[in-house]
C-alpha cells in the first residue's frame, strides 16, 4: 500500500459495530464489540473507546468472554483464526487456526469445562462442537448467531432454522426437533428469528417473523411439549434475552422499542420506546444492572447510561466539515445530521433536521436529509430533506439554520417547502467572506437553478432576516448538475450536462459558457488562492479538464476516469479519486499544471464516493514535496464499507504515538479531567509522604496537601458554597507565605476568634511545630479557612435534600 515512503493510508474508525452482539465484561465496566477487523473495548461509564484489539486479518465474527477467566476473551474471525485476548490490557495471549472461516462462536459454562463452538458455514452448515470432552455435530444450523443458545448451565443447546427448532441434550446425546407450520390461518409467518434460553428454568423463548414470541416448555419429551405465545411486536422480533436471574425477558425489533416481559407473569410488560433505530442485539450485563442494545444505525445504547457511539451510516449527503467545530458532518440517525469529531473519533451531537416523529416500520418512506452545506464562517447551514413516495409527488424541504451563539447550536431560520419541482442535485454557499450578503445556490433536476438570499423583510421590524429566492436561472432547459462559487464569490459556475455556464452573481448575467463534449460534467471546482483563475471539471467520459477563465479557453485536459474531484479550501491543491479495476487511485495536483503532485495507487478497494479535506488544527511544516499537500488540511475519505480513512505522514504518526503514550492511564477509574487532577494530586501526596520519611526538611510542602483543599475536594459538590466564595481561600492556600507574616496572621486570627479552644491549641502548638517542622505549616496556615469551611458544612442543608427528593 505504501508508495511514497512516508505517507500512509490510515483507518480512522467508522466501521460497523453492530454486526455481532457486544459482550459486557463480568464487572460491567467494559464492553467489547466486534468492529471490522478488530475488537473495540469501550468503557461503560465514560463511553470512550479504550483500545482496539487488533490482529485479525478478516472480519471479526464473534466475541465472547472466556468462562474460566473473566479477564480474557475469545474472538473469531473470517480469516479462520480464534484468538484469546487479555482485553483489559489489549494483549493477544494465544491464537489457534481453525482452518475454515468461523461465522459465529458460542459458548457456555459447564462447571469446569467449557465448550467453544464454531460454526463453519462453508461446510454446508454443519456444526462442530469443539471441547475437551464433548463434541457433537448438529446439522442444518442457521448462520445467525442469535438463533443458537445454550440452556441452563450448558445442559442442552438450542438452534433454530427456518421453521424448525432443535434441542440437543449433551448428557443424553439426543436431539429433539419441533417444527411449526409455515403459515397459520391469518397468514402470519412462523419462521424463527432468534432464540434465548432461560438461565435457571427449562424454558426456551423463540422470536418469530410475525412478531410473536413463543415460550417452549417440557421440550425434553418428543410429544408432550407445550408452548405459550406472547404477542406485542408488529414485525420481526430480532433479539431476545433473559436477564441473568431469569426474572425478565427482553425483546426488541424493528419498532425500536425495548419490551421487558415478566417471566411467568407475561401480561405485565414494560416498554422503553423510541430508542432511535431498530434493535439488532440486546445484551444484559452479568449483574443485571446494564442493558446494552445495539441498533441498526450502528449505535449502541446503554440503558441507564448514554449512547456510546453513532458512526457512519449509509450516506446520502456529502461529507462536510463544520468550519466552527472542525467536526465532520454527515447523516446520522434518520432525519438527523451528526457532528463527528475527527480528532477523537466520537460523536459530538446530532442535529435534528426533519423534526418529525420517526416511525420505525419497514417499508415506510421517510424524510431523509439528502444535502447539506455550510458557509465559510459556519454561521449558516443549509439542509435539504426529501421524501419520495411511489404514487405521490416528491416532497422537498430546504431548511436554513443559523448558528446561535447563546445556545451554541443551529437554530432553524427559514423553511422553504418545495424549493424546486424535482430533486435537488447540488447546493453551495457563496464562500467569500467579505461579501455583505449570504447567498445559496441550489440546482435541481427540474432544469432550474435558484439563488437564495438572506434579506430583511421590508415591513415588519420585529422579524429577523429570512431567506428568499433571488434569481431563477436556466439554460436551454438542460438539467443542471453541479454548481460552485469562485473563491472570491464573483463568479458562479453551473454545469448543464455538457456545458458549463459562468454567471455573475451580482447582476445575474450569463458571462460565458464552456464545454468539452462529449460527456456530461460530473464535478466542478474553482481553483483557490493563486489558481483562482482556473476552473476544473470532470466529465462522465473520462476527461479531466481545466479551463482558464481569463481566456475562456481550455488550459489542459487529461483522460482519466474521475469519480470524485474536490478542492482543498486552504491551498491550491485538488484531489481526484479515480476508480480503476476494482481499486481507487488518488491523484493530487495543482490546477496550473497537469502534473500530479502526489499519486497513490489503490488507496482502497471499491469506489470512493465521499471525501473531504478537513483543515488541520495546527499546520504541519513538512518540506518534502510529496507530503506538502497534507500541510494545511487532511484528506478523509469513506470506503464502500463505510470505513473512514485518512492520509498521514510518518512524522505525524510518530508524534501521535508519543501523545497517546502520555495519555495511557489506569482505566479502572473513569477518565475524566477531574480524575486527572485528583489522580495527580494523590500521587504527589504519596510522594510527599515518602519525602517526609526521608527527612527532607528543607523542601517546602506542596500546597495540595493542605487541609483546606482536602476539605474542598471531599465535600460533596452540591453542598459547597459558591465558587466566588471559595476562590480567595483556594488562592491563598496556594501561596507560600513567609513564616514571620504567618505568625502575625495567627495573632490577628486569634484576636478575632477569641475562643478558648484556640488558646489551648496555641499552648500546645509550639512543641508540635518544633517536632514536625514544615509538615504542620500548611495545616496551621489555613486553619481559619478550614474553620470557615467547616462552618459552611455545618449549615443546614436539609432544605436542599427535601428539594432533591421532590
Amino acid at each position: 500500500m505504501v508508495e511514497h515512503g512516508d505517507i500512509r493510508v490510515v483507518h480512522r474508525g467508522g466501521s460497523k459495530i453492530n454486526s455481532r452482539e457486544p459482550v459486557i465484561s463480568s464487572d460491567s465496566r467494559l464492553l467489547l464489540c466486534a468492529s471490522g477487523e478488530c475488537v473495540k473495548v469501550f468503557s461503560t461509564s465514560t463511553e470512550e473507546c479504550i483500545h482496539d484489539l487488533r490482529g485479525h486479518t478478516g472480519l471479526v465474527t464473534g466475541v465472547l468472554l472466556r468462562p474460566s477467566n473473566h479477564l480474557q476473551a475469545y474472538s473469531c474471525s473470517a480469516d479462520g483464526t480464534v484468538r484469546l485476548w487479555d482485553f483489559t490490557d489489549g494483549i493477544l495471549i494465544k491464537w489457534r487456526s481453525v482452518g475454515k472461516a468461523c461465522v459465529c462462536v458460542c459458548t457456555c459454562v459447564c462447571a469446569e469445562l467449557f465448550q467453544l463452538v464454531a460454526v463453519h458455514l462453508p461446510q454446508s452448515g454443519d456444526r462442530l462442537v469443539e471441547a475437551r470432552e464433548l463434541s457433537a455435530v448438529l446439522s442444518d444450523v442457521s448462520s445467525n448467531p442469535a438463533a443458537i443458545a445454550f440452556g441452563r448451565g450448558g445442559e442442552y443447546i438450542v438452534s433454530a432454522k427456518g421453521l424448525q427448532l432443535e434441542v440437543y441434550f449433551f448428557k443424553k446425546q439426543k436431539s429433539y426437533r419441533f417444527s411449526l407450520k409455515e403459515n397459520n390461518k391469518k397468514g402470519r409467518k412462523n419462521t424463527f428469528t432468534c432464540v434465548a434460553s432461560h438461565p435457571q428454568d427449562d424454558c426456551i423463548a423463540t422470536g418469530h417473523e410475525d412478531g410473536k414470541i413463543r415460550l417452549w416448555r417440557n421440550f425434553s419429551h418428543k410429544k408432550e411439549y407445550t408452548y405459550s405465545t406472547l404477542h406485542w411486536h408488529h414485525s420481526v422480533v430480532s433479539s431476545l434475552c433473559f436477564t441473568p436471574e431469569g426474572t425478565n425477558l427482553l425483546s426488541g425489533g424493528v419498532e425500536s422499542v425495548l419490551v421487558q416481559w415478566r417471566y411467568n407473569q407475561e401480561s405485565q410488560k414494560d416498554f422503553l420506546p423510541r430508542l432511535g433505530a431498530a434493535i439488532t442485539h440486546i445484551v444484559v450485563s452479568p449483574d443485571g444492572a446494564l442493558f446494552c442494545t445495539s441498533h441498526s444505525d450502528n449505535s449502541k445504547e446503554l440503558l441507564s447510561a448514554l449512547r456510546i457511539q453513532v458512526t457512519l451510516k449509509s450516506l446520502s449527503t456529502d461529507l462536510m466539515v463544520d468550519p466552527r467545530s472542525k467536526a465532520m458532518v454527515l447523516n446520522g440517525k434518520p432525519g438527523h445530521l451528526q457532528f463527528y469529531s475527527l480528532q477523537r473519533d466520537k460523536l459530538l451531537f446530532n442535529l435534528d433536521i426533519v423534526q418529525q416523529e420517526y416511525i420505525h416500520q419497514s417499508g415506510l418512506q421517510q424524510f431523509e436529509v439528502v444535502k447539506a452545506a455550510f458557509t465559510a464562517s459556519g454561521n449558516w447551514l443549509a439542509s435539504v430533506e426529501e421524501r419520495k413516495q411511489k404514487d405521490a409527488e416528491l416532497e422537498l424541504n430546504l431548511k436554513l439554520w443559523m448558528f446561535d451563539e447563546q445556545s451554541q447550536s443551529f437554530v432553524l431560520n427559514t423553511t422553504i417547502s418545495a424549493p424546486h419541482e424535482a430533486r435537488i442535485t447540488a447546493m453551495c454557499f457563496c464562500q467569500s467572506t467579505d461579501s455583505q450578503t449570504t447567498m445559496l445556490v441550489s440546482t435541481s433536476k427540474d432544469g432550474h437553478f435558484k439563488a437564495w438570499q438572506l434579506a430583511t423583510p421590508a415591513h415588519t421590524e420585529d422579524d429577523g432576516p429570512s431567506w428568499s429566492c433571488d434569481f431563477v436561472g436556466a439554460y436551454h432547459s438542460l438539467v443542471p448538475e453541479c454548481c460552485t462559487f469562485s473563491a472570491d464569490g464573483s463568479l458562479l459556475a453551473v454545469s448543464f450536462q455538457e456545458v458549463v455556464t459562468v454567471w455573475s452573481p451580482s447582476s445575474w448575467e450569463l458571462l460565458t459558457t464552456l464545454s468539452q463534449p462529449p460527456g456530461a460534467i460530473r464535478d466542478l471546482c474553482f481553483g483557490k488562492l493563486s489558481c483562482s483563475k482556473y476552473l476544473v471539471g470532470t466529465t462522465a467520459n473520462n476527461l479531466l479538464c481545466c479551463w482558464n477563465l481569463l481566456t475562456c479557453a481550455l488550459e489542459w485536459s487529461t483522460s482519466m476516469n474521475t469519480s470524485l474531484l474536490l478542492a482543498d479550501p486552504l491551498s491550491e491543491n485538488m484531489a481526484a479519486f479515480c476508480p480503476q479495476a476494482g481499486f481507487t487511485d488518488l491523484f493530487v495536483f495543482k490546477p496550473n499544471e497537469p502534473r500530479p503532485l502526489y499519486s497513490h495507487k489503490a488507496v482502497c478497494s471499491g469506489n470512493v464516493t465521499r471525501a473531504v479535506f478537513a483543515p488541520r488544527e495546527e499546520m504541519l511544516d513538512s518540506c518534502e514535496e510529496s507530503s506538502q499537500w497534507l500541510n494545511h488540511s487532511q484528506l478523509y475519505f469513506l470506503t464502500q464499507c463505510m470505513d473512514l480513512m485518512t492520509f498521514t505522514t510518518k512524522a505525524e504518526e510518530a508524534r501521535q504515538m508519543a501523545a497517546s503514550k502520555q495519555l495511557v492511564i489506569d482505566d479502572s477509574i473513569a477518565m475524566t479531567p477531574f480524575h486527572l487532577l485528583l489522580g495527580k494530586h494523590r500521587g504527589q501526596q504519596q510522594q510527599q509522604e515518602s519525602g517526609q520519611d526521608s527527612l527532607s526538611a528543607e523542601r517546602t510542602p506542596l500546597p495540595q496537601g493542605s487541609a483546606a483543599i482536602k476539605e474542598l475536594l471531599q465535600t460533596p459538590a452540591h453542598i459547597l458554597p459558591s465558587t466566588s466564595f471559595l476562590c480567595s481561600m483556594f488562592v491563598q492556600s496556594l501561596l507560600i507565605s513567609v513564616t514571620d507574616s504567618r505568625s502575625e496572621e495567627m495573632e490577628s486570627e486569634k484576636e478575632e476568634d477569641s475562643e478558648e479552644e484556640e488558646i489551648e491549641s496555641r499552648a500546645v502548638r509550639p512543641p508540635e511545630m518544633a517536632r514536625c517542622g514544615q509538615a504542620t505549616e500548611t495545616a496551621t496556615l489555613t486553619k481559619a479557612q478550614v474553620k470557615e469551611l467547616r462552618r459552611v458544612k455545618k449549615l443546614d442543608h436539609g432544605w436542599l435534600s427535601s428539594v432533591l427528593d421532590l
Partner: protein
Amino acid sequence: MASYKPTKITVYPKLGEKVTQDTVYWKNYKAPIQIKEFGAVTNINFSPVAPHNFAVTAFTRIHIYGPFSHEPVKSFTRFKDTAYCGRFRSDGQLLVAGCEDSVVRLFDVNGKVALRMYKGHTKAVHVTDFTSDSYQILTGSDDYSCRLWDIPNATELNAYQEHTDYIRCGVTSKLNTNLFITGKMETAAPPPLFYAYVLISVMTLDHGQPVESLLLYPSEGLLVSAGGRFVKVWDLLKKGQPLVSLKNHHKTVTCLCLSSNGERLLSGSLDRHVKVYNTTSYKVVHNFDYAASILSLALAPNDESIVVGMTNGILNLKHRKNAEESKEISGQQRRRPSYRVFVKGKNYFPKQDDYLVSKPVKQHLAKYDKQLKKFNVSKALDTALEAWTRLKKPEITVAVIKELDRRGTLKNALAGRDEQGLSRLLYFLIGNLFDPRFAPVLVTAAEMILDIYQSVIGQSSVVDRQLLRLQEMLEREIDYQQELLEVLGMLDTVFASSLPRKEVPCSAISKSNGLTQGEGRLQLQAT
C-alpha cells in the same frame, strides 16, 4: 430514548396587508360619521384651544362643530356668496373667512354678525389667515394680490402685488410674525411659483404645478407643498432646496395635514385616498379610502379625530376609540381566572445567587398528538376534524392528514366511517381542496376516500350530494386553471416579443435554436 416529537403544523405566510404599528394606530378609529353639508367642503380648521371645535367651510356657510356633537354648535351664514377658508385665531376666539364677493369677514366665535369687514380686494378671496402676533390678517385673492390687514382698525397695512396669478393657498408662520407663504394658481405659460414673504418676497420656490395646499412644519424649517399629483418637501433653511417629491396619488393632491406629534404627514387627494407618510422615510405607511374626491382634511389635536370634507358635500368624521373600547377588541384574549394558576411561579426569575433546581418541563401534547403517539389513527383524524379546528385552523387538520399519510396509515384512518363521519370529511374536502396550500395533501386523501367508499355510493343521499358538489367544484377549478394557463401563454408571448434577445458569448456548441423552438412547442401543448 428521545421524546415524542409532535406533529409539525406548517406555518403559512400570511397573505395581505402586513400589520405594522402604523396600521394598528390608524385603524384604531370608530366607524365614520357622515354629515351632509350644503356644498363641497373646501376647508376644515380646528380651534387651537379646548374643546377643539372645528370650523367647516362649505358653500355659503361656515359651521362650527363640537368635538362630539354631530350637529353644528354654531353657524355663520351671512355670506353673500361662497365662503372660503374659515380659520380660527390662535386663542380660538376669532374666526376669519374669505368670500367670493371679495370681502373678508372677521367673526367672534360666540357672535353671529361679522365684527369687521375688510374690503379692498377686487376678486374672490380664497386665502385668509391670522399672523402669529394675532393682530393682523393675511389674505390672498384672485386679483393677484396679497394683503395684510390690521384687525382692530380694519385697515390695509400692506399689499403685495408680486403674484402673477390667482392666489389659492397660503400659510403664515407661527413663530415669525412677518413670515408667510402663499401659493398661486397657474393660468399662463410661466411655471407656477409660490412666494415666502418677510414684508417683501424673500424666496421663490417652483413647485411645477398649481399649488393646492401648503403646510409648514412645527419647527418651520420644512415646508410641504401639494400641487398636481405631487407632494413636495422643501428645506427653507437651505434656501428652499427641494428634499423629496412624493408621487403616491394619481390625481391632484388637494390638502395636507400633519399628525399631532409631527411624525406623520397626511395628504388627501381627488383620487379619494388619504395617505399617511412617515416624515423620516417619506414612505406611505397607511392609506384611508373615502367615497368621494377629497377637498379638505384636518386632524384634531392628539389625532383624536380625522375630519375629511369631500366634493359631494359630505363631511366624514372619525373618532379615535378610547382605551376601553380598544381593549374590548382584545377582550377575546382576556385571560380566564384559571390562567393565574398556570402562571403561578412561572414569572419568577432566579436572582444571581439563587440555587436553581430545574424541573424538567412537561411536554404538552395536543389531543391528536396523544392519539397519534398511541397509533390511534382514526381517533386522531376525528379529533383533527372537530368543528373548531376544521373551520378555524384547517392547517392543523391538513397537517394531521399529512402525518397519517407519512406513516402510511391514512387509508386505515379514512376507512370505516359512517354517514356522518364521511360527510364531515367530505365537507372539509369541499372547503379546502382548492386551496393551493393544502391541495397536494388533500388530493391524495380525496383519492383514497373515493377508492374506499366507491362501493357504497348511492346509499346515502347526503354523501351523494356532497360528492356531486365536489365534482362540480373540480370541474370549475379545471376550467379556471385552463384559463390561467391561457393567460400565462399570452403573457409569455408578449414578454418574448418585448424583451431584447441577448447574445451570450458561446465558446462551443450552438444548438440553442432547436432547443428554444422545442420549448415553445411544449408551452403551446400545455395551454
